[in-house]
Each structure stands twice: as C-alpha cells, then as structure tokens.
C-alpha cells in the first residue's frame, strides 16, 4: 500500500514536470510547477520529514508560484517559449543515457539495511549544522535584495542606448 502511494505521488510529479517543460505557455508551466511541489511535499510527509514538507509546500507551491506569475505578468508577450536550439531527439537520447547510468550508480545504495537510529532535528540543525543557519540568514538578506530588483520599476537603458 505504501509503495502504491509513493508510486502514485511520484508518477504525478514526473508527469507534471514533463508537462511543465513541454507546455508553450509559461503561466501553465508555473501551475504545473506548483503541482509538483504539492506532490513532492506529500512524499516528504510520508517519509517522515514533516518540517521539510511544510516548507516545500509553503515556499515551493506558494511563494515561488506567486513570484513566477508576477514575473510572467511583467515579461508579457515574451512569455511564450521558443523552439529549442538542441534537437529534441538528441537531447532525449543524451539525457536517457545519463539517467540510466545514474540509476545504475545509485540503486545499489538502497540495498543496504535502513538504520533506524536517528539524530534529533534540533541537535542536527542548531548544533551540528549551525553554519547552515547563518548561511540561510545571509541568503535571506540576498533574497530581499533580489525581490527589490524584481519589483524595481526603474527601467535601465536599452542595449542600443548603451552602445551609443
């Protein structure tokens, strides 16, 4: 039963990811991306990583989707994705080979027995990975600067004006 649940959620995520990539409209792709976030959050919740599931759902399906919709509304007509430079069959074959190789490399890792002893999250986050917390604070400040750049109404000179 658990296997079927994981399988359904992940299959949905993979289908949504493919649809997001091949869809012509960026707005449609943004909605598919939000669906992927929700499905991945469900898998994370089932895995026992409830904190990460909540973060992923609120940030991935909420904040990032809102930012994407805002960016599409600013970009306007250019939101349509043009045809790719790399031929799609070539890209498909290359990625297929890489994915199969990756699968052969990582699947033996699951054969090992699952260790059930677990380090508490509070100790891992606030003691062992305290540097990560400081880096996250710095990243959030840079994110604020990024939002200012996103919301900035000031129009920089166009490329023709720069060359003059």
């Amino acid at each position, binding site marked *: 039963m658990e296997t079927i649940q994981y399988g359904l959620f992940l299959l949905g*995520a993979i289908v949504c990811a493919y649809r997001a990539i091949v869809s012509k409209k960026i707005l449609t792709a943004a909605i598919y991306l939000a669906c992927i976030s929700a499905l991945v959050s469900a898998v994370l919740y089932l895995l026992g990583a409830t904190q*990460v599931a909540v973060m992923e759902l609120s940030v991935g399906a909420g904040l990032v989707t809102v930012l994407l919709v805002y960016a599409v509304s600013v970009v306007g007509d250019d939101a349509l994705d043009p045809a790719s430079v790399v031929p799609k069959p070539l890209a498909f074959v290359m990625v297929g080979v890489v994915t199969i190789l990756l699968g052969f490399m990582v699947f033996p890792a699951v054969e090992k027995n699952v260790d059930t002893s677990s380090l508490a999250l509070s100790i891992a986050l606030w003691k062992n990975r305290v540097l990560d917390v400081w880096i996250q604070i710095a990243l959030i400040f840079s994110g604020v600067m990024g939002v200012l750049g996103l919301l900035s109404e000031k129009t920089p000179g166009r490329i023709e004006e720069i060359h003059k």
Partner: protein
Amino acid sequence: MLTPLNVILFGVVALLGVGFYGLLITRNLIKVVMVLQILVKAVILALVLAGKLSGNMGLGISTAATVIVADTIVAVVGLALAVQVRRRFGTVDVPQISTLRG
C-alpha cells in the same frame, strides 16, 4: 524487490532526467528558473531519502531545509535578473541575449 525506498529513488532519478532534458531544450530565461526548481525538488527528495537510509534523518532534514532556502533565493534572483534583462534587451530568449559578451 519493489520497496517504497526503491520507488522513491526511481522517482528521484526520473525527476532529475526530466529536469536535465528541460535544461537542454529550454531557451526562455523564466522557464530555465522553473526547470532548476524541478531539479532541486529531486535533490530535496534525495537528501531526505539519504538521511533515512543512513539513520541521520535530522541531518537529512536540516540539509534539505538549507537547500530549500537557497533554491528560493536562486529563484528570486533569477526571476529578478530575467525581468531586468527583459527591460534592458527587450527579450528573455537566451541565444538573443548572448550579445552580453564583452
């Protein structure tokens, strides 16, 4: 044997494959940011799975949380960059803005 962890690992590898394919065929800057989001979601799943397999679930969760924060900042800065590029160059098509070279 099709265990739940095998299914998750298959999903991670498939999501990574779809993301790499998207990176190769995408030309729109905003869509590139979206494809990066797909790749990072696969990585988050892989980190939590690795934490579960190694018995360090707390470590896996804390690392995944850091990745989520970094990924969000990448999305914000990438979208801000795309909007500014659109305002300056009038397009978000990557080959067309290759005139950026100095």
